[in-house]
């Protein structure tokens, strides 16, 4: 049919898959279709600088429009994540090096500031000099850590940095009795698992930073400064060399670039940014603990970077906003439930065509729920007498579909395992089977959520970060704002 059309009217679109269709792919993608395409073009017309200005203005407005401390605190944390992701973007996104000890540099900066501005060693250095000193020291540390993995082959660097990150946590956690090879008495350097408390606030040009709002603005200024620095470096000779190393380090070396040195610079630059961020983090929290610099933080920063798109500066902003705000919302089970259901529904609407398939899937999920609930209740009413984690109107409504036993933990666990298996099965089966399987998986998802996942919001958050990484890497490795990389074979 498609060939008939193209013969009759050669000016219309070529048949899918023929050479002309492939050749015109870029133009078609750029043009976009329907309202999405129109919106896309409108968005593209705004110059990049405009977006940054708009973001800055919006971010600066936050403390003015709300006096809610919680919201400002979330904003501050988001800015911290943005700064961290900016630094990591240099290492991973620009230079293409996998740095798995990144949060250790963040921690090093935090501990560095804490030691020089607290009662731990009875030091109170001027803030500005501490900032400069700590940033430079962290950058130097990054340089030293990367140095031994001689040619900085990706995998070796990953191992050394991962081990370094783990070692940092171990050392700071046991740092209250450090001995030199067991011969001397134990020195208390980091105060062990209790962390360093009563860290002094920033004091810039004689003004002590006391309020959350002032910290928020300082974080914003830090972010803008680092963003500009990264932007300038990225468009400089060094930035161009980094990208060429990422794409093909052998070719870069043959073009006369000092590949090893450039990689070390990228690594040190990223570490320096993390160190600077650490000082800010330590001074607002007025305390540092080794557990803040462990793997979950690392994975979260990676999720932000990957979601936004490695190598994209705007993506860092978007990724940090999406990930951190989502994680905050996930703290309350009822809000999380709404996000969860909206996300599922949005995915279904985007993926299922035509509309009646979508309708059939949703209706059959409801029917399946009613049937399962009726059957279970008929066998033993005791098994359906419990309540899920979701409360309120929605919870009562869900109870009609989900036979939840009084102790939902065990069944919820099995539902979760079955859900994972079901989702994996969905990725391999063909359309018809997929549509038949979908209602079951949807039902399992709702069941696992109500019976288990929503009971443990803190673990669910972490599971979701893992899922984000896996799914994004498989489905859209360039992230939200990153550019598709063309692989030359």
């Amino acid at each position, binding site marked *: 049919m498609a060939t008939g059309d193209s013969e009759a009217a050669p000016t219309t679109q070529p048949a899918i898959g023929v050479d002309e269709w492939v050749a015109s792919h870029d133009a078609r993608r750029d043009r976009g279709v329907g309202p999405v395409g129109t919106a896309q073009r409108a968005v593209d017309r705004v110059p990049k600088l405009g977006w940054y200005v708009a973001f800055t203005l919006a971010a600066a407005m936050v403390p003015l429009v709300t006096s809610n401390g919680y919201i400002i605190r979330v904003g501050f944390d988001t800015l911290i994540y943005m700064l961290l992701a900016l630094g990591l973007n240099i290492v991973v996104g620009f230079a293409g090096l996998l740095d798995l000890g990144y949060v250790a540099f963040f921690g090093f900066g935090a501990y560095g500031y804490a030691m020089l501005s607290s009662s731990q060693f009875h030091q109170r250095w001027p803030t500005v000099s501490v900032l400069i000193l700590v940033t430079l020291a962290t950058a130097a540390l990054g340089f030293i850590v990367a140095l031994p993995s001689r040619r900085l082959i990706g995998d070796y660097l990953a191992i050394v940095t991962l081990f370094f990150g783990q070692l940092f946590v171990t050392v700071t956690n046991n740092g209250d009795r450090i001995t030199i*090879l067991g011969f001397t008495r134990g020195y208390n350097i980091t105060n062990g698992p209790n962390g360093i408390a009563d860290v002094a606030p920033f004091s810039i040009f004689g003004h002590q930073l006391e309020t959350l709002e002032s910290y928020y603005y300082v974080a914003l200024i830090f972010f803008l400064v680092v963003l500009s620095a990264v932007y300038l470096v990225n468009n400089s000779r060094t930035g161009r060399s980094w990208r060429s190393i990422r794409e093909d380090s052998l070719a870069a070396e043959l073009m006369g670039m000092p590949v090893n040195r450039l990689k070390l610079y990228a690594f040190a630059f990223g570490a320096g940014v993390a160190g600077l961020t650490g000082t800010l983090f330590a001074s607002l929290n007025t305390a540092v603990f080794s557990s803040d610099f462990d793997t979950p933080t690392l994975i979260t920063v990676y999720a932000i970077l990957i979601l936004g798109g490695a190598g994209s500066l705007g993506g860092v902003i978007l990724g940090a906003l999406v990930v951190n705000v989502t994680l905050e919302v996930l703290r309350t089970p009822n809000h999380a439930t709404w996000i969860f259901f909206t996300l599922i529904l949005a995915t279904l609407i985007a993926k299922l065509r035509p509309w009646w398939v979508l309708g059939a899937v949703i209706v059959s999920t409801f029917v399946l729920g009613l049937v399962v609930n009726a059957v279970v209740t008929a066998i033993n009413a005791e098994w359906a007498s419990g309540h899920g984690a979701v409360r309120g109107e929605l919870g009562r409504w869900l109870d009609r579909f989900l036979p939840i036993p009084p102790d939902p933990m065990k069944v919820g666990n099995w539902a979760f395992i079955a859900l994972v298996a079901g989702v994996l099965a969905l990725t391999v089966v063909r359309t018809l089977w997929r549509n038949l399987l979908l209602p079951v998986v949807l039902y399992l998802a709702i069941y696992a959520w109500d019976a288990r996942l929503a009971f443990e919001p803190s673990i669910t958050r972490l599971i979701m970060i*893992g899922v984000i990484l896996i799914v994004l890497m498989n489905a859209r490795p360039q992230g939200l704002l990153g550019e598709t990389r063309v692989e030359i074979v």
Partner: protein
Amino acid sequence: MNWNLFVSELVAGTVHGCVYALIALGYSMVYGILKLLNFAHGDVYMVGSFIGFGILTVFGGATALSIPIWLLLVIMFAAAMLGGGLLGVGIERFAYRRLRDAPRIAPLITALGVSFFLENAALLIVGAEYQSFNSFSWNPNSSGVGQLWAIGITLPGNVRLSLAQMIVIAGTVVLMLALTYFVGRTQLGRAMRAVSFDRQAADMMGIDVNRVIAVTFFVGSALAGAAAIFNGIVYQQVWAYMGFQAGLKGFTAAVIGGIGNLPGAVLGGLLLGLAESFTQGYVSTTFSDAMVFVILIAVMIFRPNGLIGKPALAKV
């Protein structure tokens, strides 16, 4: 010289090294064939531990076993190796296969994601508490000291080598011999080496690359499952986050020996176990990790391809 301390650290280091070596083998096999650091491997080991613990619970728990110890061990090994192997194959199929020709960093980050997912899914399902194999009380007939630890021989320096420790050492040797035979002498092992050497050429020669990679993941992950049971009967404790540390040690061992090189992985594992236990015995218990890191850095500086690895030729 204090023989007691020396020999007991030697025994402890060898036993721990056997566990590391088995984990390192899995890393090395996967790296050899896909050039991928499979960060999720440590978590396969964790899942294997919980499979073993589940079997123990099914048969009455440590203090009230309903079957003989040897049968329990056989079932545990079979279940953990099979379960671990299948999990490994599943991870490869669903998370890594599509990324086989993607830029190097993409599968690495996916592997991190898989590891994080498995850890936290385990946390959700089994909880955050430490569980114990408690093999000291394994005795189906009466309570008291279990047979695994009651039987044993006495080494010079008055150090006891118990049956549990002997099982670990002997089991590791058997598994390694079997692996050597498998990789060196069988059709599938030869196919594995061919794919590792040049995947495209192997494909053109009619080797089913997907199947060979799946088998590699199965064997490597099954070894991690065996390591998990060894760890359980000697060191008792299992918990949801144990995979991360074990994985870190496992691939450090693989790198020290020469990543992608199977005898190297074993050598690296033993060396790591001995270095750790001698550091704990003679220097400080808390900083054995630091000692391992120093060794890793030293190997990277002086022998970047590992102790018995060959220099890699960069193909253009």
